[in-house]
């Protein structure tokens, strides 16, 4: 069942007037408060000044006029295609088309053998990427965890290599520095058959956390973002304030500040390279006010992540956001409902590229094999909702009703046969709908045990590398590949 890229936008937390109000508020923030920056961004600041921004170098403040923002934002493409190494995994990001996938940079894993939490390794990254490759409802691969067992200098190239070898889905991740970015682009170009081919069919893209909320540019990440623009690599402009700590406590204030950060980021990208492919990357989050930790599992994260898509849609730029986090430490009922709520809300909001949706626990800090399998099922269910109910002659089935007649049954009707694999979401196999007797016979397994068994089976299968053999050899000659 292909449930990728469905159109939605039924859940609209903001009315059209409210969208306008927030958008205007964001423009006011950029005009009146402005954004700040630190040493090292002199060139970027000059570029902004040359194009109409008001710079106060003593105060390190940049202010933008409405017109400047409008002009630059209009240059950002309305549609961005993020490709997979296999074209069946291409993602057409635009309007209210919904895609969901993994999210990044966890540092711990529940060990699949012992169940105990430990640091993630490069091998873990490779294994979970293979899982993602085989789980149909996970549409793309944002590097789900960090390899804590390798040197920082080898990070970026190995991270992308592990993902690209293991999966033919679109691969996205952050990089540590510009050198890392260049290495990754070079490797991907080798696979693509040159930089032009890569730009044409970008099967990698880069997350750049250009903003340190509130309203500050991160020097390193802004450099990386602009360098990716110059190299025609799509970027996701991540900014992730936490309501109550790095943005106002209120949802409206958080949205307004975040939208302002995005408008500023998009402006920088479009000035760097007009038409640069990018994803609006507002990730509204919440602080747990009792600890100031990140509350990824809060239902309001789902509400705000649906709203932020409305704001990106308002300026006609496809978006990257977040849903499917949980604050739970293990794949339990809390993880289940937190994920289901936010994933469904963000999906029904029509968000284009929803990351963090599979595998994560403890608000971005931990992953678990079984969680990927469970989340694949949650995403499948959410996408099924987007598909809606077909109402037409064939689906109304009046003839069938007539021919079966009052008092009959539909079990053997050809109409049932014709629709039974398509009309309902059939699941990936992890959901239990057996009788109690059968369930007991099969070992009385709970969802976590069943999911773990499925993951084990998927990983025991063949390990095809998605990188062609000759190119793989060249890559290994050129770079220090540690996998």
């Amino acid at each position, binding site marked *: 069942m292909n449930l990728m890229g469905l159109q939605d936008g039924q859940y609209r937390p903001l009315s059209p007037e409210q969208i306008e109000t927030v958008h205007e508020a964001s423009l006011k923030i950029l005009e009146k408060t402005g954004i700040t920056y630190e040493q090292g961004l002199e060139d970027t600041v000059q570029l902004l000044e040359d194009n109409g921004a008001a710079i106060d170098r003593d105060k390190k403040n940049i202010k933008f006029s409405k017109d400047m923002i409008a002009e630059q934002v209009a240059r950002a493409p309305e549609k961005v295609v993020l490709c997979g190494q296999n074209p069946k995994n291409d993602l057409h990001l635009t309007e209210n088309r919904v895609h969901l996938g993994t999210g990044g940079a966890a*540092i711990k894993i529940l060990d699949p053998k012992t169940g105990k939490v430990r*640091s993630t390794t490069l091998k873990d990254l490779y294994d979970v990427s293979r899982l993602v490759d085989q789980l149909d409802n996970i549409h793309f691969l944002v590097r789900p965890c960090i390899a*804590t067992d390798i040197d920082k200098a080898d990070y970026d190239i190995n991270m992308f290599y592990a993902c690209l070898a293991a999966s033919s889905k679109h691969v996205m991740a952050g990089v*540590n520095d510009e050198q890392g970015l260049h290495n990754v682009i070079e490797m991907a170009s080798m696979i693509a058959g040159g930089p032009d081919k890569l730009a044409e069919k970008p099967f990698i893209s880069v997350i750049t956390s250009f903003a340190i909320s509130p309203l500050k540019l991160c020097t390193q990440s802004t450099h990386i973002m602009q360098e990716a623009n110059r190299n025609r690599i799509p970027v996701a402009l991540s900014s992730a304030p936490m309501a109550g*700590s790095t943005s106002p406590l209120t949802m409206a204030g958080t949205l307004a500040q975040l939208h302002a950060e995005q408008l500023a980021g998009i402006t920088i990208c479009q000035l760097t390279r007009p038409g640069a492919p990018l994803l609006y990357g507002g990730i509204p989050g919440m*602080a747990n*006010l009792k*600890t*100031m930790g990140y509350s990824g599992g809060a239902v309001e994260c789902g509400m705000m992540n649906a709203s932020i898509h409305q704001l990106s849609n308002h300026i006609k730029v496809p978006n990257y956001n977040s849903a499917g986090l949980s604050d739970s430490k293990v794949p339990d009922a809390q993880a289940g409902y937190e994920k289901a709520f936010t994933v469904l809300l963000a999906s029904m909001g029509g968000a284009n590229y929803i990351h963090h949706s599979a595998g994560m626990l403890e608000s971005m*800090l931990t992953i678990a094999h079984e969680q990927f399998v469970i989340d694949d099922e949650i995403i499948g269910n959410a996408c099924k909702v987007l598909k809606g109910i077909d109402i037409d002659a064939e689906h109304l089935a009046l003839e069938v009703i007539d021919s079966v007649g009052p008092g009959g049954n539909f079990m053997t009707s050809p109409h049932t046969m014709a629709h039974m694999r398509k009309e309902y979401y059939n699941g990936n196999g992890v959901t239990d709908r057996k009788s109690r007797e059968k369930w007991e016979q099969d070992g009385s397994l709970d969802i976590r045990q069943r999911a773990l068994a499925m993951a084990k089976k998927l990983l025991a299968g063949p390990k095809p590398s998605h990188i062609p053999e000759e190119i793989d050899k060249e890559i290994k000659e050129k770079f220090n590949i540690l996998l």
Partner: protein
Amino acid sequence: MTDFNEIKETLVNLDEQRLIELVNEALEKDIPPGDILNKGLIAGMDIVGEKMENEDMFIPEVLMAAKAMSKGVEILKPLLSDKETQTRGSVIIGTVKGDLHDIGKNLVAMMMESAGLTVHNLGVDIAPEEFVRMIKEKNAGILCLSALLTTTMPMMKQTIDAVVESGLRDQVKIMVGGAPVTQAFADDIGADAFASDAGSAAKSAKALVA
């Protein structure tokens, strides 16, 4: 003494204005400023810290309490002897080089301050040499390092090494923390203490210089 109870309660209730009144009243009654500080304000903040750890209070409320307390301390400071202001040692805190995360580190700094320690918060992306320089300049008794990235955790070790090299290691106790940091890692790199949250960080710092 009932006065201290009222001071403590008022602090826990976040009534800054009343707190200042109470501090002034206590001074008028010739209660030693050191007692007002230690038995009143700091003791009150200890209660706040406990409530924070038990999640009975929101952090913004804890911050309000800390602010109210520091207003009280301002009144007392000129009246305290040097010895009294120095009692609990001075702390250097910062996020290590290459790391820009500061929310948790700032919370730790704030809790230590309200535990009566003098805190110099250097900010983020701080190089080992800078930490060393500041330990010397402030004659610090505690060095606190924060890191939120696995890629910057090695920088904690490098910073500790720089402190050892500078010959200052015997002067300072070193504490480390941040989401990826563990007790085992702290032991590994030769830190003196680790804490997983701001409340226990403050407690542990007080214990280190006691």
